């Protein structure tokens, strides 16, 4: 099994806080990998380390057989990222944003225009492509950020909460698009709190809690480990130990 992404002992400290603690990820090429964890577990920090926004304090990373610390530009040519802050220039238009990314990735003009038009149409942004990003709603910005991530046709896609703030119709279209992307050999590393979506999309799961990877494997392996017939939500709650807490808590709340 070839791996699109592999980490060994990935660790990141912020002062005294260890946000990511010796994480060993294995993401098979062509898989749809769901990276789950409670709030503050270290998901976004892990993605930032993997995509070169943060430098790991310790550990090794291999992305598509390249070391992002040694060849960051080479790795970035092969990946697409939808980060949590969306990473868009407020005062560029959607068309200019795609033009910026396309030119940096070396796309020729015809390819850039064709892909941009298709992506903007799919994201229902074609009618607003010449408006400034600052005037977009949060959902529109997220769709544009996704279009930016997809434009260079990356081999590996990092998506941090792609469905948050997206309407149901667009969500369905994006899910179909992502499934099609994986079926054609692409690899997706996705974080989401919407476990129903993760369950329908992902064939590989990793669960992180307090910065540590507490489970990793295929959906079937996860079910085998916690009992057959269980939903991903049940598996996740059991793994992070959050099932029985709410019932007796806050008894003053009427």
């Amino acid at each position, binding site marked *: 099994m070839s791996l699109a992404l592999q980490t060994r002992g990935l660790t990141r400290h912020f002062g005294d806080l260890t946000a990511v603690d010796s994480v060993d990820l294995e993401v098979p090429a062509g898989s749809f990998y769901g990276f789950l964890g409670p709030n503050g577990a270290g998901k976004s920090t892990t993605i930032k380390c993997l995509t070169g926004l943060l430098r790991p304090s310790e550990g090794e990373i291999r992305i598509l057989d390249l070391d992002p610390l040694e060849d960051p530009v080479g790795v970035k040519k092969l990946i697409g990222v939808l980060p949590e802050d969306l990473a868009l220039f407020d005062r560029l238009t959607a068309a200019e944003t795609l*033009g910026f990314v396309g030119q940096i990735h070396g796309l020729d003009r015809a390819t850039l225009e064709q892909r941009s038009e298709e992506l903007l149409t799919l994201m229902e942004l074609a009618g607003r492509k010449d408006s400034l990003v600052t005037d977009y709603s949060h959902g529109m910005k997220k769709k544009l950020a996704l279009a930016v991530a997809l434009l260079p046709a990356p081999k590996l896609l990092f998506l941090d909460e792609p469905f948050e703030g997206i309407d149901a119709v667009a969500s369905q279209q994006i899910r179909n698009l992502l499934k099609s992307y994986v079926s054609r050999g692409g690899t997706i590393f996705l974080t989401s709190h919407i476990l129903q979506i993760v369950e329908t999309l992902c064939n590989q799961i990793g669960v992180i809690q307090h910065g540590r990877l507490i489970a990793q494997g295929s959906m079937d392996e996860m079910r085998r480990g916690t009992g057959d017939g269980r939903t991903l939500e049940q598996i996740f709650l059991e793994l992070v130990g959050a099932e029985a807490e709410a019932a007796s808590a806050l008894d003053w709340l009427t």
Partner: protein
Amino acid sequence: MLRTIRAFLWMRWRVSRNAFKTSRRDSLEQISRALGALAPVFMLLMLVPTVLALAAGGLFLGWKMGQAGTVMIWKSFAFLGLRGGLAVGTITVLIAPMVRSSRGTGSETTRLLLLPIRRGMLHASEVVAALSDPWLGVLFPALVLFPIGIAIGGSFFGGAVSLIGAILFVAILMLAVSLASFFIALIFRKRKRAERFTAVLIVVLSMSGLIFGFAGEHWENQLEDKRDAKRVGTEAAEEAAARDPNLTLSQHIDRQLPFIVGVLPSEAFLRVVEAGVDGHVAKLGLNLIVLAVWATLLYSSSRWAYSRLLETPETGGGDGAMGAGFRAGTLPGIRPAVAAVAFATMRLALRTVRGKTAVYLNFVITAMIYVILMRELSDVVLPTGLSFGLGIGFAGGFFTLISLQPIMANVFAIDSNGLTLQLLSPLSTSDILHGKVVGSALLVAISTALCFGIGFVLDANGSPLVWLSGLLILVAMFLVYAPMSILLSAVFPKVADLSRMGKDGNPQPIAGFIAFIAVPLLLILPGLTAAATLMIAESSLLTLAGALVWLGVALAVYVVMMRGLMGLFERRRENLLLVATGR
């Protein structure tokens, strides 16, 4: 109400304090923030002597006023000074919210609406918060101590009613400040409208200093005539006061002023004081009613404006199509990736108020300065090769470097989330840094070209070699200034919105100051060389040779500095990202 105010004060204190607390920022960033925070503290400390002097002045004048029956002249002078001072103070207090709002709305109304607090209470909290306005804060102690001085001076009744008048006047000022703030905040609810307002404000403030000079002698003569007339009027009033000792100087001047002046809050307040000290009950009652009417009107208007503000959502207001389609832009001889960063930087700047005014306003101001200077210097003979047109063009380029300081000295953080996009893209550090330099160069080039163009149109004389030398000297200055700005931007990043005036749009104060003084310092050596070759050697060719030497030196400095900056940027990139994305 006290509980609410206490909660608000606590919240604001914690927000300020917590701004320094985060384990994610590196120590250099914490030092940068601390230095940045020292600037307003320093300004506040500068205000303390002013507040103390005004408070002491108020107490002293009040004390003299309390002795009015025996020292009539003091009462007259005190009134004249107070009338002028309070009128100017009132206008300043009302103008301040306009400038402040264009620095940032500071509005947390949505969050406040969710709290279990009645709108009336929210409104009252905002009005009371107007006391934290520095200008009002400067006036407040003097206004309170003034009636106390009157009482100490012997007029207890005068002191008591003056205190009532002072309280009403302060309330009027607070309500007026609040009303002005709410109206401006309403304007800022729509992004485009806000940007237009800020642009107009910047243009008006920039131009105001030039208007008198531009209007020239004609206006000056007119003003002088008016001053003479005023002096004659004052002298007449003084003579009349001398002839009729029962009338004060203020009373004589009053007779020359239109009726409407008497109902202005500052005037009504001082008439309350005068009537209280003199014991004129009818006049006292009338002017107290005037103050009460003002307070009621302003309260109602301010309450209405606040309700509108709470109910008006923020909108962008910019649906118009713009931009360059899918083209990022290319430049001959520049790598496409570098050009993409450069054009993004240029577009971002030119779509903000600060960027537009820095680039497009310079040549207008430069042309106005030329017209003014030519009135005074038209007879001056310039050294051979020089011309006023070249001087204007060069001055324009020089001021362009200074006025682009908010962009160049904070060139990473102004990208906001766009910096993340650049760091996620397959761009090398060299691409990003050179892209920023080329982007800044495009901005400088647009503005400088406009200034040289207007200079050439107004006066095309002078040697072409000297014209070229002027341009080369500017390029040499830019080549040192650009990496210096990159250094400042990397060491002192600060979240900034270039569509705001003041601190919200400015770079970190230390970075801003260094960038500001760097431009004239960079001119010294090339400027002296050019002056020596033109004035002593009287050779245009030598001027050009000197400029070329400095250009070579600047290029060497640029290369060395940029190499050093690559490593610095790598070390600072995580921190830059945190700052740019507002964390």
